[in-house]
């Protein structure tokens, strides 16, 4: 109790965002997580400017430079983090890989969230048979392991359209597969909140005004159910990035010409026991830090957006 400041005694009037920001500033771990996440986003956005090499340049891949250790070991200062088995600068491909992983993660979760929110709102608000039908669909979807669906789908896609076609569309297909398999999580959360919200009198008041069901769902109920969605959103981005990395690791994700973090790790593993540990370890560390930051942010948001959550 030694940190009591006299000016904190009066409650701060103002918006919930200001309240959140003031809570944020006090939490060093959350600040660090946000800082790391923003750093990743910035680096991903600016990858073409930041990367020391142009990845599209044919000279970028030079087998003469293969498996050079990071500069602090090899003292070869052309390649800060060394090179991979094909002689590509590891720093450049990690930057581009982060960009790909983040894009796939964010887009897939936006897809998940839009499907999940629409289905959850409709199921919760209309109730009855529609609710039953949609929630049984969600149960069926949940009963399949996401990874299994993704593996089957990607394998079938590759065998039907050929690997060349797949390499062109890999990112889009990954976004679709990861996006379409995890919507029930959003749908169930939204449905539960909608069931609580639609009992409230402001919904009746809107109905008495004659406002359409669609408008009541999206303009009146949805804003009141968004706090848990925000939490799931951050955690799901981390999950989607991991899922993409796992699929890439299994050889079903991004092709090695256009590697994401997962495909970098996958390639690096085979060099691990040949002594070139950095090809696997550095992308792995990059991924782990990103996922950790996302999960910390999600935890913090859950604590602050839900006042009923247990706090000690």
């Amino acid at each position, binding site marked *: 109790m030694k940190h009591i400041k006299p000016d904190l005694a009066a409650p701060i009037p103002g918006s919930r965002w200001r309240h959140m920001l003031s809570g944020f500033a006090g939490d060093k771990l959350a600040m660090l997580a946000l800082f790391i996440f923003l750093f990743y986003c910035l680096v991903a956005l600016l990858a073409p400017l930041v990367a020391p090499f142009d990845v599209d340049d044919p000279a970028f891949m030079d087998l003469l430079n293969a498996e050079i250790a990071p500069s602090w070991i090899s003292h070869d200062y052309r390649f800060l983090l060394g090179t991979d088995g094909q002689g590509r600068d590891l720093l450049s491909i990690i930057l581009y890989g982060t960009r790909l992983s983040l894009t796939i993660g964010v887009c897939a979760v936006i897809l998940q969230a839009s499907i999940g929110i629409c289905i959850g709102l409709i199921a919760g608000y209309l109730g009855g048979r529609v609710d039953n039908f949609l929630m049984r669909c969600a149960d069926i979807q949940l009963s399949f392991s996401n990874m299994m669906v993704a593996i089957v789908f990607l394998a079938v896609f590759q065998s039907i359209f050929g690997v060349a076609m797949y390499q062109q569309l890999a990112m889009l297909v990954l976004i679709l597969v990861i996006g379409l398999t995890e919507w029930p999580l959003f749908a169930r959360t939204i449905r539960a909140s909608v069931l609580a919200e639609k009992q409230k009198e*402001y919904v009746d008041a809107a109905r008495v005004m004659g406002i359409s069901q669609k408008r009541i769902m999206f303009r009146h109920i949805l804003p*009141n159910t968004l706090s848990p969605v925000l939490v799931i959103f951050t955690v799901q981005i981390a999950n989607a990035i991991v899922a993409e990395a796992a699929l890439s690791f299994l050889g079903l994700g991004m092709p090695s010409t256009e590697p994401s973090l997962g495909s970098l790790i996958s390639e690096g593993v085979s060099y691990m026991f040949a002594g070139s540990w950095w090809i696997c370890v550095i992308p792995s560390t990059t991924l782990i830090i990103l996922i950790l930051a996302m999960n910390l942010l999600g935890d913090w948001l859950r604590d602050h957006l839900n006042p009923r959550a247990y706090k000690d």
Partner: protein
Amino acid sequence: MTHPLIQISGLEKTFSSETGWFGQWHLPGFKGRGKTDQIYALNGVNLTIYQGETLCVVGETGCGKSTLARSIMGLDEPSAGEIHYLDQRIDHLNNRQRMLFRRRMQMVFQNPYASLNPRMTVYQTLSEPIAFHNPQLSRLDVDEQVETLLESVGISANSSDRYPHEFSGGQRQRISLARALSVEPEFIVADEPLSALDVSVQAQVLNLMMDKQEEYNLSYLFITHDLAVVEHFANRVAVMYLGRICELANTSTLFSAPKHPYTQALLSAIPRLDSTAADPIRLIGEVPTPTEKPIGCVFQARCPYANPRCYSESPEMRLQSDGSSVACHAIEESRL
């Protein structure tokens, strides 16, 4: 005053409490479903509301007051019976057809803490219905209307960008009233609008409602538990018991000469400063549950005057010499 605005005849509402999800799929030829529980909330309500009057509905918890209000507003669909607005039947309309009547009938809700959307500012709450029902208005006109509306319920217009949680309960209930008035209705249903408020604030809101009634010639259907409010506010009073109306009378008649045994018991329970000696009438017997459809008079189980006829035959509303209507066999047979 004598022109009927809303006529309700034989209104019934049954809620069924089906729990299992399987029970909702009505398979043809599949009769093995378990018995469903029914709640009989309204059992044949007949009521006429006249233009410009205030009709108060009183009765104990669970007697169907709120269901009556919600049925009139179209929030719950009645199981049987008819509701007429002027000369048009409105109870079976779908949302689109009902739109014409949305402007004329509005509702004020019980809980001012739940009846305003917490994520919408007062301006958004009020401008939405105005813009929705008057699409020809420009944005400036809407702004102006919201401003006058807020001022007219005693809330300063420059607080229109605030959220509901920044207002007190009484202010919120006045904003609720402003929202109801925003579409210029003729008829307002108020479902216990005062029960969540402090007594001093109750008077404020009640006076505001009376002012608005004078200003716009509004008719109110006012649901309340508070008999003091009824005496002060109502033109006529309907006493409900277990989904039926058992007595309907002018306020002064009802308070001076209550006829139905339930009304008598209800009024005797008001604490009075002037007559401490009078004992309240104690009703004995079990409070009935609405899970079975009542046979005979709804009040039979607790009525001290019940005879075999009361257990078999449902009493009709009969007009008395002083203008009140009572549904009671004992009064009809002059036993009371």
